[in-house]
């Protein structure tokens, strides 16, 4: 089945899949893809953008088109690079940065037109309702697993949870959600946030969870879709749910992002935060000091270009961080 690549949590998968193609979130992250991407952008582009470009350049034939959004500047501009260096049809959803639902709603209407043309079929209300049902079930399954992750002690690791989320992002629901859980973890409870967690980042999550337990996250690549709950099974319901998801950090002002994460930290009884950022990720990198101040919890900063060359350093820092939380040095 042909894939429709997409780049952002604000793009409704229900509409993409209603075309009959498979929604495939572009969220790759390996050094080799990143190096391939560097053939078409400068070295100081964000590694995620470079890796996605590299992946697309190597796998163009699997795709029928790409839908992107104006998340960050680089995410928006990567779509122009795709247009230039591939023959794929590309559509951009102009996701407003300020509180402007009118723009978002208009953009969804435009997206429907693009998809109808791409899929050569009408996205009828029945079809849309069916897709909403399907994807809501999928999300509900993930939400159940998330509750186990959130439990105290945590019953499900984020590295395992990430694997389930990958199936969501690649458009393939698992046949069954795991019925039995991992063994309870008594490691210090932390929240993970920052730049997107790529498909290939699972070893990093495993590394973290040797000493820590990630009991919640605000990351593209992991839990972002869970926060979207469509109540009315129609286009209006899609617009409402996708617009009113807990806002990305790039929204202006981004007070609501801070409010949401603060609430999550309390509800999930977090003892610390791990901030994972990619090189040149302005939206997160600029705010790390502010996060430390605002959230009032110890924060471990880990910056990556997708290579694992610093793994020994990371191990040491993660262990030290876990130790400091255990000893309750900060809180």
């Amino acid at each position, binding site marked *: 089945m042909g894939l429709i690549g997409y780049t952002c949590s604000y793009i409704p998968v229900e509409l993409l899949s209603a075309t009959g193609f498979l929604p495939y979130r572009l969220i790759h992250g390996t050094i080799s893809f990143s190096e391939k991407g560097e053939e078409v952008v400068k070295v100081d582009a964000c590694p995620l953008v470079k890796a996605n470009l590299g992946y697309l350049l190597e796998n163009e034939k699997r795709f029928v088109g790409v839908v992107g959004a104006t998340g960050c500047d680089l995410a928006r501009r990567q779509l122009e*690079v795709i247009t230039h260096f591939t023959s794929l049809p590309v559509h951009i959803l*102009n996701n407003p940065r300020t509180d402007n639902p009118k723009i978002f709603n208009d953009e969804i209407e435009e997206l429907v037109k693009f998809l109808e043309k791409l899929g050569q079929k009408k996205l009828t209300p029945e079809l849309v309702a069916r897709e909403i049902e399907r994807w809501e079930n999928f999300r509900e399954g993930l939400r159940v697993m998330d509750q186990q992750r959130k439990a105290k002690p945590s019953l499900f690791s984020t590295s395992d949870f990430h694997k389930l989320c990958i199936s969501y992002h690649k458009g393939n629901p698992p046949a069954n959600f795991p019925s039995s859980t991992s063994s309870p973890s008594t490691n210090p409870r932390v929240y993970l946030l920052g730049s997107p967690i790529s498909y290939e980042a699972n070893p990093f999550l495993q590394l973290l969870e040797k000493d820590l337990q990630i009991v919640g996250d605000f990351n593209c690549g992991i839990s972002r879709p869970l926060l979207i709950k469509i109540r009315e099974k129609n286009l209006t319901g899609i617009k409402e749910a996708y617009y009113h998801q807990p806002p990305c950090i790039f929204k202006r002002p981004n007070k609501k992002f801070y409010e949401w994460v603060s609430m999550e930290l309390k509800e999930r009884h977090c003892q610390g935060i791990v901030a994972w950022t990619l090189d040149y990720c*302005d939206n997160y990198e600029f705010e790390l000091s502010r996060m430390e101040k605002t959230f009032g919890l110890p924060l471990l900063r880990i910056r990556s270009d997708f290579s694992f060359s610093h793994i020994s350093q990371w191990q040491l820092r993660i262990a030290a961080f876990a130790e400091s939380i255990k000893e309750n040095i900060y809180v």
Partner: protein
Amino acid sequence: MFSEVAPKRITLSEWSRQFRKVPDEVIKKFNYYQNSDWGRYLSPPATFFVYGARELKELKFDNSFSSLRLWGFVFNESERLFRAKQTGRKVIATMGDLGIIPVIVMAFPEAIPFYPECFWWVPFYNKSNVLLTRASELGIPEATCFSKAILAAFSKRAYFPVPDLIIAATGASCDDYSCLMQLLEDIGYNPLWVEIPLRRQGSEERVAGYLIEEYQKIWQKMVEITGRNLQKEELKKSIRKANYLRSLVKELKETVSQAKIAPLPALEMMVIEFGNLYGYGDFAEWIKIVEGILQTVKERVAKGIGVLREDAIPIAWVTPSADPILLNLIEDFGCRVLTTEYLINQALVPISENLDPFLALAQAFLNASLIGTTKERIRRIKEEVEKGRIKGVLITNVLGASHCALETKLMEEELQAVPVLAIDVPSPGGITEQLKTRLEAFIETIK
């Protein structure tokens, strides 16, 4: 004044010697805010060297009287903004939009718009890392666009007065400013956010509609701040003023570009292009300065004289140089900057005077450099290349600037007909022999 001297680029010391010829009564004649008591600004560039702009000692300036006026005025901006505040004017920071919002602000007689982002030149002129270091202390990552100096300037509260209002434009533009403006909230400022939509073919009308709503929001805020409920006619007047300046600069650019010998250096031309944004805080005086420059240029063209050699190689310059000395350098190496794309196209196009003023402003903004595709952005440069007028293109990137990272290779693809050199502008005082060699090699290639 100075009509007897041949046009050339001169040093700071030469300017100081030449300045002695300026009579006192002439110095008294030129004032900002039309105030002859404290509004004088005519001074040799060495004045600003003494104030800390150490790079001026390395720069070369045009030696005309009209350029003297320009430099005195431009470097006087900080003082001017503080004076504005002292005299009860409303100082409005218009960030991230570059070109349209000041036209709205200027409709209110006692309001002074300014662009804090233009203070990113300060570390370069001062050859100082003070602002960049402060930005790091405030948590900004090292590998960030030089615009981070702005956050530091806000935090230090020494480079411009505390604005009465900060209008912060965000959306389909570059991220660096948006992230910086967000952090302003942490140091006690409260920006009014304005949405910049994406430009796409076929959606212009819809996009203009969004912009109109945003501009009306700003208008209302200005009414609230100034206590003046102005009629739209005042906005139309402001548009006419902006258009007059835009037409002057257009004529100037065309005259300079078509002249056989470059009648004005690239550095002064860049300063003039940026003046379109907000007239450096005194629109009326800036218009007179540009009129003077245009007059000088016309005289030079009529006499067939200029500041560079006739065989200087015509190139295009894409993205403004964070370090002004690069513009000097490229001329020293035998080039002439014939055309530019400094990211401010929205400030250069005429604004319709026959439409509702908000719609007219929205339509003008739809020409913005950064809200559409790279292809659109460099269309004019490509046309000049195709006409054979441009022999090479120099792109000055800033490491960590989001748009630079993705645009450069696309530009190189589009401009394959001529040599293109893309350089990352180094930190203040960081121009190395290696960089100079690269520039020289680029010029050799064109030759």
